[in-house]
């Protein structure tokens, strides 16, 4: 035995195997700040993500104020925002900064770091039976790089020329030339530095998640006995590790164009009457590099939500997940296809039509694994004894939004239809429903479901149901009408639609959307209140396994310490979805196969 341990003596996590029963004298700093415990790092990611979500959501409220009430002034805006809202009206430059930062914050800081940072950290070691991540040190660094990225991004809000304002996709030349706009100056530099830190953070995290899943599963936990959450988080990490470096390449070239006079993306440009010396560059090259990350990024956001919803749907339907291997296979197919469809964001850039048709085919192919997943979720629910816990409600909401948002993807994936729909509100409606709100629902489902494990207390159910119903109805009321605006040709990213005769008819509709958006934002604050209040005052969890679930995280103590299991790590004997088998409600993964147990359900 001792030889096995000494082989690994340089290795922190196995060290815990031998020493975890000693009481660690942890200081406040080592326990709450520079913690190497994956559960604490998960909570740090979650709380930072919540703060970012409030900021990002607030940005959308501010620009919805402009879109909904373009003719009115709000003097109190000038009191808070100063010259950005001169005369109580949001200035055009600031409007563009708001939409840019709204996209950046929610796509990267909330739905990438806040979502997979939280749940990959929290669930992977607990569900596969590991004491911690493969490298707790890199894991801690992953959070602190994210924190650094956050601080830099926040500071960009307070510089005199304002934050980046060229859209979250930072297309050159707007992002490459400091003189091109207000937001192209220092705000853009800070954006790039912050994102470089962010990429480092997600690479460190991703490396850890992949290694932990492939390398540190407990005895008996074969890959096909893993809960679908772990599979989803695994594919998410693979996508991140392979696509973020390409964005980094693109950003490095952009930095050279900005600061050192190269011409990767710039050619024949006139700024303020002055002809620039840059020659031979191509802005389309940046779009290729950006969307090679940008499209997988969509699945980086969506896959964790899919995985958590699968788990929560099975637990609360008291039925095994339908088509486990089909679920894994379709996630694998989505991961592969994610790398082969980026040019569908670029159908109208003068892309070769033949190449375009290849990308149409590959894009529409994604409908196949997506449909398989939807079918499997619905058949999991079919004739189950459903418990409508708040987590379950949000998981159901996720499925609903994924269907409604996914269908419009079929329209947009056709290059000929895209000529009309590109850069309209139809696109906004599509990606907000299928990626934005759906992933938020997956995240909420995860928070409501695993909050008892994270904090040892329950969230308040009444507030949770109010949160759910207002959010799902509100989300549809906000984004459904946008499809019609988009079909009518209303372009995205305009400051004031009331000056166009063709879009003036949408004035009252825009006002309605803005009103609902503010209401939905207010209800999110209710959730935030519920979250922080329940950490300290929520109803205490008394049983180890409150949802009567099969997976390993519920075999730990109510509030597990660093090392997760006080004794040995349990051995796994079966897959995680033995619900309603042989007349028993649930059979945990740790229970050996019985002598008379039937093979299938």
């Amino acid at each position, binding site marked *: 035995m001792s030889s096995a341990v000494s082989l690994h003596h340089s290795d922190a996590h196995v060290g815990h195997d031998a020493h975890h029963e000693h009481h660690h004298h942890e200081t406040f700093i080592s326990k709450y700040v520079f913690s190497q415990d994956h559960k604490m790092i998960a909570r740090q990611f979650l709380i930072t993500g919540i703060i970012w979500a409030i900021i990002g959501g607030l940005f959308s409220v501010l620009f919805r104020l402009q879109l909904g009430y373009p003719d009115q002034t709000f003097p109190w805006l000038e009191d808070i925002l100063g010259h950005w809202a001169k005369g109580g009206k949001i200035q055009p430059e600031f409007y563009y900064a708001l939409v840019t930062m709204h996209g950046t914050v929610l796509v990267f800081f909330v739905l990438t770091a806040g979502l997979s940072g939280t749940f990959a950290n929290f669930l992977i070691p607990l569900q596969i039976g590991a004491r911690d991540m493969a490298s707790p040190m890199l894991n801690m660094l992953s959070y602190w790089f994210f924190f650094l990225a956050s601080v830099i991004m926040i500071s960009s809000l307070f510089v005199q020329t304002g934050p980046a304002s060229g859209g979250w996709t930072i297309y050159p030349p707007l992002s490459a030339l400091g003189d091109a706009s207000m937001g192209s100056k220092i705000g853009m530099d800070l954006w790039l530095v912050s994102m470089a830190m962010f990429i480092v953070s997600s690479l460190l995290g991703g490396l850890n998640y992949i290694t932990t899943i492939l390398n540190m599963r407990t005895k008996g936990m074969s890959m096909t006995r893993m809960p679908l959450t772990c599979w989803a988080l695994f594919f998410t990490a693979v996508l991140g590790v392979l696509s973020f*470096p390409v964005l980094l390449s693109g950003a490095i070239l952009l930095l050279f164009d900005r600061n050192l006079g190269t011409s990767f993306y710039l050619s024949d440009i006139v700024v303020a009457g002055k002809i620039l010396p840059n020659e031979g560059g191509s802005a389309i090259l940046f779009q290729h590099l950006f969307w*090679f990350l940008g499209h997988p990024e969509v699945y980086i956001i969506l896959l964790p939500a899919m995985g958590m919803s699968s788990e929560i749907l099975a637990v609360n339907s008291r039925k095994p997940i339908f088509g486990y291997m089909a679920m894994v296979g379709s996630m694998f197919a989505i991961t592969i296809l994610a790398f082969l469809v980026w040019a569908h964001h670029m159908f109208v850039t003068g892309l070769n039509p033949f190449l375009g048709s290849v990308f149409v085919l590959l894009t529409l192919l994604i409908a196949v694994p997506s449909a398989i997943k939807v079918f499997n979720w619905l058949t999991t629910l079919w004739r189950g004894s459903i418990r409508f816990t708040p987590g379950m409600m949000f998981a159901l909401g996720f499925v609903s939004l994924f269907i409604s948002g996914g269908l419009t993807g079929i329209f947009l994936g056709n290059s000929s239809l895209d000529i009309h729909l590109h850069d309209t509100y139809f696109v906004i409606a599509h990606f907000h429903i299928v990626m934005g709100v759906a992933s938020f629902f997956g995240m909420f489902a995860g928070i409501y479901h695993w909050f008892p494990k994270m904090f040892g207390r329950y969230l308040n159910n009444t507030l949770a149901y109010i949160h759910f119903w207002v959010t799902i109805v509100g989300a549809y009321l906000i984004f459904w009408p946008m499809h019609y605006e988009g079909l009518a040709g209303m372009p995205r990213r305009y400051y004031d639609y009331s000056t166009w005769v063709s879009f003036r008819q949408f004035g009252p509709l825009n006002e309605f959307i803005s009103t609902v958006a503010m209401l939905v934002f207010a209800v999110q604050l209710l959730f935030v209140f519920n979250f922080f209040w329940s950490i300290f005052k929520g109803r205490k969890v008394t049983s180890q396994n409150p949802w009567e679930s099969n997976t390993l995280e519920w075999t730990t103590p109510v509030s597990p310490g660093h090392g997760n299991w006080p004794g040995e790590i349990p051995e796994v004997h079966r897959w995680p979805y033995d619900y309603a088998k042989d007349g028993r409600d649930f059979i945990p993964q740790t229970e050996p196969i019985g002598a008379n147990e039937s093979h299938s359900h």
Partner: protein
Amino acid sequence: MNTVAIEQRNKIHPHKFTLWVGIGSILMMFAGLTSAYIVKRNQANWVTFELPIAFWYSTAAIVLSSVTLYLASKAFRERAMNNYRKLMAVTLALGVLFLLLQVIGFKQLWSNGLTLTANVSFSFLYIIVGLHGAHVIGGVIALIVMSLKAFSTKTRNYSIVPVDLISTYWHFVDILWIYLLIFLLMIR
């Protein structure tokens, strides 16, 4: 307790595995750059270039350093610690020599009029070679740490894991350089 530890013995060490995944990630970064390079080459305004002679010497230096590092890790396994120390020092010196030769190569390019901004093909050359150099700097820093530990009389560490980690990484940047050199020779 140790069932898990014993299971671990048959598997690759987690840190080594992390490194391999990280290598995959670094490869994607260079894949992004080289594909951008290929796309740009097919457009107008591309000027072809000759690689400086210093890059050939640097290639010899980094290949040789891979050999000495291999011998060092062999010596470590045989517990021939004196040989190990010497070979680590030689590897480190060759690594630094590689970086110096790359800088000299850049200077040769620059003095021949192939400056960073003169043409987009030169810009690519500087960025691709420079980013590879940045990864070699990372390896050199690791080699410095390893050499300091090897010569230190205070600590005695016989774990093979760090030696294996630096070997894998160093051979990787070596092979990556050879690939990039061939790429830049074939496609320019």
